[in-house]
């Protein structure tokens, strides 16, 4: 089964990290990710830029409305996500705990994926 791990954290806090702290977190996450990748369990991973860079399209009206900023004003923001392949919720939780040790604070929302199209973009 494919799962998404949606990473929430207070971006005011992550933006207050020093470069060294940020690098340290990314390095620790990298270790976990590398192992998952070797096991063939890791799909796309993304770290999102701050919500100040976000734009929201409200498409519940005609014409759709373009709004600066994230969709929801929340205390913790969606800052990134992983796509994983795992046998069970227990396994994803275990992976999430491991990632959480590398990057404490905030929350991970685990969401089973209904449709996954890996796509292809030139990098």
């Amino acid at each position, binding site marked *: 089964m494919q799962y998404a791990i949606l990473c929430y954290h207070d971006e005011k806090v992550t933006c207050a*990290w020093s470069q060294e702290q940020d690098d340290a977190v990314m390095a620790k996450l990298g270790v976990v990710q590398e192992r998952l990748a070797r096991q063939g369990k890791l799909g796309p991973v993304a770290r999102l830029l*701050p919500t100040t860079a976000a734009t929201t399209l409200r498409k519940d009206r005609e014409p759709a409305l373009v709004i600066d900023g994230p969709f929801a004003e929340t205390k913790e923001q969606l800052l990134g996500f992983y796509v994983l392949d795992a046998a069970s919720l227990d396994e994803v939780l275990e992976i999430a705990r491991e990632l959480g040790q590398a990057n404490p604070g905030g929350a991970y929302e685990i969401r089973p994926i209904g449709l996954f199209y890996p796509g292809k973009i030139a990098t």
Partner: protein
Amino acid sequence: MTDTVWISSVLTAARPQAIAALLRYFRDLDTAEEAFQEACLRALKAWPKNGPPRDVAAWLIMVGRNAALDSKRRQVRERPLPAEELISDLSDAEAALADEIDKTDYRDDILRLLFVCCHPELPATQQVALALRIVSGLSVKQIARAFLVSEAAMEQRITRAKSRIGQANIPFEAPGAVERAERVAAVIAMIYLVFNEGYTSESGEQGARGALCVEAIRLSRLLLGLYPTEPEVMGLTALLLFQNARAAGRFDADGTVVLLEDQNRALWDRRQIAEGLALIDKAVRHRRPGPHQVQAAIAAIHARAARAKDTDWAQIDLLYGTLERMQPSPVITLNRAVAVAKVRGPADALAMIEPLASKLNGYFYFHGTRGALLLQLGRAPEARVAFDRAIALANTPAEAAHIRMHLDKIGGHASAGSSA
């Protein structure tokens, strides 16, 4: 990450909002700061045991406010608040306070705090020092190191700034629309000053001063969070991100300045550039251009060019033309001349800057640029005179060294260095 490291970044993140609310409550910068300090001390004691509160800023405001009131009461020999009451009430009161904070326009609080730091009565250096101390929470020692002055001198500078603020009678009522717009503009200028204080530096000082650039970006994002639809704040944030993205390429191994054209673009920070591009894209949609957006757009053109020779100089020329109309200044014309030299040749560029001589005679970049243009036109003797003048006006040894490279290229019996 250890508990204390985690707590310290949480406290840093909550600082502007907490201090801003405490400032509104006590109407005194020192009291607000002390109250926040006390709240932080209590957080360091309580959080490792009890875990962090649901709303960190509300907790700090509440605890800070109580602590300061408590100490005030003690000072007037009134019955102090029982400590237990203070702690046990907290979980209930916290939710109510969080709601209250959401309801009051906390944006105005933070804007006021930022504005206090850039009050027109304060000279630029005091504005920057005060913002770094009060809003960012850098220690006096850190700020002193960044400014290359002694700790005592910085302490004095900050104290002086605070007492001026105290006398300035800044209104604590919610600002009107015009006043709010003026405050935003003043804060934008102050944040840019903070950035420049870190940016105009020598390679050897990158660590201490580079931190100011990072801090300015954080302040800029804070302001953008408060005013997410304000295109000039997007422009400012983008501009700072583009400039900071180039930090690693600005000096070579010997600490010599590397011009934009010669920088190794692989050293540029792609993430900051991506964020800057996203912001400038967003800003343009508002069709309310302003000087920071235009400057960011110019920086974006450099950031987009994979190689220096791919730079769209014609577009840069146009943008500088726009900037000249928005805020006429000889320095902007001088910058435009660099683009003009690329598009239409050095003769046109030189004709453009010659009339600026009287205004920019004491300006390093004027003579450096003029020398480079003269050199391109094959007028080496005149170029040498211009370069000598530039060296005499250089702000840093790195700038002087850069001009000497030009002089070395002219070769012969260069008088380089004679004026150093």
